[in-house]
């Protein structure tokens, strides 16, 4: 697993201007047979990335195969990560090298899965998303800076920026590298006490 603490990320970005990208596209089901979390990056967007399911035949027009684009930030169309709950989608993005996904809308389960893997989903307005696509498609060397503390995303060069809102609890967790399971394990006693109370309630 990559670094857990997320504060400020500055990187060039990879544009994927397609709406409604479902997790079956991010990682097709036939690659879910692994029993570990590693190695899913090689099959990220597999069917969009290669002709005839052959890694030797990259599709030239697909963004991951375009030598102009590189970076730790994926910028994707509205409603990213819908469909199947497979966390493998988040693992594949992270394993490929992305630390941030920017979109104007995220599906619920994907968002949780991303956060649990320290992959930052940044939700921007439709207008700002369009602006990012326009700028990076014209000048792929443009960097984006995502500042979690300030909740801002900024396009270098033009200086265009936008505020994104982030759940305060989750923000604290990401800034410090805490994950939910550490917290839940720390309150196991309270959970057991709750179970006792709940049992008593049912008996009443």
């Amino acid at each position, binding site marked *: 697993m990559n670094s857990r603490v997320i504060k400020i990320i500055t990187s060039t970005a990879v544009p994927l201007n397609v709406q409604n990208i479902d997790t079956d*596209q991010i990682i097709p089901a036939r690659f879910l047979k692994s*029993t570990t979390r590693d190695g899913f990056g090689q099959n990220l967007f597999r069917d969009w990335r290669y002709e005839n399911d052959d890694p030797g035949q990259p599709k030239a027009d697909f963004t991951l195969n375009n030598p102009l684009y590189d970076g730790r930030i994926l910028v994707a169309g509205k409603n990213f990560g819908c*469909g199947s709950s497979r966390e493998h989608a988040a693992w594949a993005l992270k394993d490929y090298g992305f630390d941030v996904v920017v979109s104007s809308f995220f599906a*619920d389960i994907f968002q949780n899965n991303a956060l649990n893997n320290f992959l930052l989903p940044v939700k921007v307005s439709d207008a700002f998303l369009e602006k990012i696509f326009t700028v990076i498609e014209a000048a792929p060397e443009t960097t984006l800076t995502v500042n979690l503390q300030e909740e801002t995303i900024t396009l270098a060069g033009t200086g265009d920026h936008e505020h994104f809102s982030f759940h305060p609890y989750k923000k604290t967790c990401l800034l410090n590298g805490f994950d939910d399971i550490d917290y*839940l394990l720390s*309150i196991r006693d309270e959970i057991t006490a709750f179970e006792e109370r709940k049992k008593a309630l049912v008996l009443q």
Partner: protein
Amino acid sequence: MAKTLFEKIWEKHIVKTIPDGPDVLYIDTHFVHEVTSPQAFKSLEDRGVSVLRPKQVVATADHNIPTINQHLPITDKLSATQVQQLTDNCKKHNIELYGLGHAYNGIVHVIGPELGITQPGMTIVCGDSHTSTHGAFGTIAFGIGTSEVEMVLATQCLLQNKPRLMRIHVDGMLGKGVTAKDVILHIISKISFNGATGYFVEFAGSTIRAMSMEARMTVCNMSIEMGARGGLIAPDEVTFSYMKGRKHTPVRDAWPEKIAEWRRLQSDKNAVFDKEIYILAKDIQPMITYGTNPGMGISIKGKIPTSAGMDDNGRKVYYQCLAYMDFAEEETLLGKKVDYIFIGSCTNSRIEDLRQVASFIKGKKKADDVEVWIVPGSRQVEKQAIEEGIQQIFEDAGFKLRQPGCSACLAMNDDKIPAGKYCISTSNRNFEGRQGAGARTLLASPLTAAASAITGYITDVREYIN
């Protein structure tokens, strides 16, 4: 204060609320399957943590298993390893496993209700987005990722923000040939496949009340296909009579006590929802999808919508989707040739689905150039289909009754639709490549699938029923 059904269940399961943060939500029942659990067990072991409540966890192998020759070892090495790991993990952690070959094996969302494990008022999770199916019993049931599977194994809890609440009313009598599957495909086509993202949906109204439990499960199953975390329906006499006498259903004195408790699981009269939607049953026709997300549905006699009014990006995506399907805007689907029929999945693989198909095809033969796969949702459904003579009806018609599993719904095993071929599928997703790379999926009801299997082309079942 008036409360919704969802709030009543949610509030009973809050262990504590983190200030400015999510609720710690207690989970009553956790279903586990072979594909989304191995990493969770591994990580748990790395932390040296045990499973907190093994008795509240139930496991099955369903996603990645063959649907023929289940008595033989699994030939695909990776699949075999995954299934073996589930077996080992369940053994190690004392978790009940209804594995391959077990008399109760089947698709996780079919066996939970079938065994009476799913009960009103519960919180239920599983590493599968169609966990929403269990909401048909008046439960809060939703899909989770593998990290969350690990959390629930370790602590029986999740950190959750309370979702917004939507209520969808469906009222009136459904027309002939119109089923629960058409109801939910109609709803999704109206509110779009992300129209309920961020919401939990309660389904209400006379149409829902008149549905059997299996039909209600079909409706709740596809809540996720409009983006919702889950869907639920208040329990009633239909629920209780379905549940009575099942393996895990409460017995003796506990049964009337439970029913009394469950009857209170209703949204109060003045309960407030963030959004309410009203649908009339008379407006619902048999539905079919033409595109690559479940919101792209039309009535079987309808035309594919035009791109007029879409912005450039929208039009680009729309044309790509139609190109993938090899359809054109304003085209009618009725009468188009199909290659495969898949009747199965957690949406439509229960005994009522199979009975409905059997009663329609009895005495008929499938079209010569169509391949028909029927995959029962569980071993119990399979057994029942054999005992009721349904299997014989299928065989006489040239349909193949396979063995239970998720099968061609997600094509993780060998049940794949070849590239470019059209498949009318009773499953829940028509995404690109979902049923196999390049496969073209048309979602529809078991009745529409059955009628099209007989003719060999997309058919309006109403033309063949009195």
